């Protein structure tokens, strides 16, 4: 029974990892940019949720659309003001720029909110859980998992069925050919970065009732996010979702069987094994 509980908890936390990783993988797949600021965008999403709650009294799940739209705007703004100048440049410029954006966002959060750990507590979600038999499912974690699932499906639908999605996939496949076909590549990038950022915002909203926010909260989660992206297959949206769940479960099971101190070793050992044995990831990065 305990193993099932661990499995359930692992799958649920995996949902949060997936939500962050899907954003990273989308930007990576379409724009070929590794966005090191994704963790900080998540942090912005968390603070925005907190602010909307403390100032306007909005429940985080009510604030969800506001945060997602705001983060879409922020992401699009970052692309318009900064990223578009380095899309054609080498990876070094891109890495330095996204790292820099991350540091600026971190420092801004520190200046505005200070370095303390701020939590948001809303009944009935605080410590709330659905108990089935002896399995307890945290309501906030379940909500995060459901949102991750819906977001992934919606994104896959967008990529597969809409004209925008087709343009995104075409740009991902061959940027020059896409330009020749009359696809407004820069606008596609703008939308991609906006969606990637909105996904970080969504992850932020869902994480806020679970975990306290502080300016460097994104750093640790981002590291797991990268492992998930590599595991799932660079650029694969469905892979990122699957990878998130796998990492969540592996971390939880390793933590239970071997002790929490060992769980990180197992996760990163898995990361190294994937890089050696299957560098393309579980699902090859062809979804985007």
């Amino acid at each position: 029974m305990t193993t099932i509980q661990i499995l359930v908890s692992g799958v649920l936390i995996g949902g949060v990892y997936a939500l962050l990783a899907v954003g990273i993988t989308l930007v990576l797949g379409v724009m070929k940019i590794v966005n090191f600021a994704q963790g900080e965008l998540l942090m912005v999403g968390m603070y925005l949720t907190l602010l909307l709650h403390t100032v306007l009294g909005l429940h985080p799940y009510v604030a969800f659309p506001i945060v997602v739209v705001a983060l879409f705007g922020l992401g699009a703004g970052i692309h318009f003001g900064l990223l578009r100048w380095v899309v054609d440049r080498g990876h070094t410029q891109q890495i330095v720029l996204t790292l820099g954006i991350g540091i600026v966002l971190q420092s801004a959060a520190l200046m505005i909110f200070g370095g303390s750990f701020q939590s948001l507590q809303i009944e009935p979600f605080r410590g709330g859980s659905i108990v089935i038999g002896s399995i307890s499912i945290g309501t906030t974690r379940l909500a995060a998992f459901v949102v991750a699932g819906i977001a992934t499906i919606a994104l896959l639908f967008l990529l597969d069925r809409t004209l925008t999605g087709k343009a995104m996939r075409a740009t991902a496949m061959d940027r020059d050919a896409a330009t020749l076909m009359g696809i407004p590549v820069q606008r596609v990038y703008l939308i991609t970065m906006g969606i990637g950022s909105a996904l970080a915002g969504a992850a932020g909203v869902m994480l806020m009732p679970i975990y306290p926010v502080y300016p460097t909260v994104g750093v640790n989660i981002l590291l797991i996010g990268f492992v998930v992206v590599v595991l799932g297959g660079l650029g694969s949206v469905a892979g990122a979702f699957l990878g998130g769940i796998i990492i969540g479960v592996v971390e939880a099971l390793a933590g239970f069987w071997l002790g929490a101190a060992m769980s990180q070793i197992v996760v990163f050992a898995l990361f190294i094994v994937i890089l050696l044995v299957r560098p393309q990831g579980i699902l090859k990065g062809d979804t985007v």
Partner: protein
Amino acid sequence: MSKSHFKPVLALALMGTLALTACASTAGDSTSEAEAPITIGVLLPLTGPLSTLGKEMQNGYEVARTLFNEAGGVDGRQIEFQVSDAPTPEDAVSVAGTLSTDPDVTAIMGSYSSSIAIPASAVASRNQMPYWETGSVAAATTDRGLSHLYRTVISAAMPAYSNATQEFISKVAAPALESSPDELRFGLVFEDGAYGTSASDQFKALAGTEGYNLVATESYAANTNDLTSVIERLKAAKIDVLYSVPNINDAILLTQQSAALGFKPAYTLGNGTGYTSVDFIAAVGDTADGLVVADAAPLNISDSLLSADLSPTYSEFITAYEEQIGRKPLTHATLGYVGATVLFQEVLSKAETLDADGIVAAAEAVDLGPGETVASFGVKFDETGQNERAGWFFMQYQEGELVTIYPTALASGQ
């Protein structure tokens, strides 16, 4: 980068340098030696994950400084702080280097966290700069026998620390569970940094000598975002008493996830830090009620329990703190206040000279008895610089407030 890009960068750098030079020259103006302020380098983590309690300790320093300066300072000379942020051990090394080679700095005071204190004090001692530690509890801080280090707060290696825990368990916790310590099943959970490891090592040693039945020992990284596996392992071990040593965010996570997963040991004994921060209280609210927390200073005591000669008194400290900060002090503010006040009143005021040798001599002469600080413990440094009179106290969350319950002489609530 082309050459033309360098010009504005160079110009900016030049302007910056000029501005700094200007600041430096105003700082060293012509006030005579007798009236010149005394500068204390404050080294604390003020940003990053340790900042919550770093700031709390800084609040204590500031209140101590205000009260001391209002009372006339050191023969009319005011105390000034040169505050430096050291969020990580690496920063601690560089900040300690800068402060200890600054001719204006008389002593360094810090640093709340053991992970900051250990590297920073090593650098300061190498540069023969007095280092006044008010917050770190890890044994390693003073165990290294550094020449210029003094610690006002308890060390986890002190017998008083283990004895207090042992006495509390046998006289308060076990009777409350209508049992005896050797019949109870103990669990230990800790964050695997310098602080958690040191405090848990002491508990393991205590469990060994006292014959506690320690059935589960779990550690984890403090920056974790899920503690389900840890909690499930503790749950499976069927423990009666949980001894827990977390930092702040993991204290919140542990408390919330334990509630969500239905893990409620009969008795939870928390070790300081994570459980005595404003953030913790704000995050968990009344979920914490009943939780017992051990820390290095008692809270919510009264003047009558302390020496009548103590000045400022406990209530004057509380009033000044509330006026300046806007709420009551917690443990780390109290420890910061005590440490700073002892430095100002007993060392700087009594030192014959304010160089390193003078301060060391004055520190070695400090002799405060029980009740002569607002944290109730006395101060006398042993040969390693450790305050051998520091104490360890037990408090309980009652309606969202920490009330001292042990030692019974200080107990304002039960």
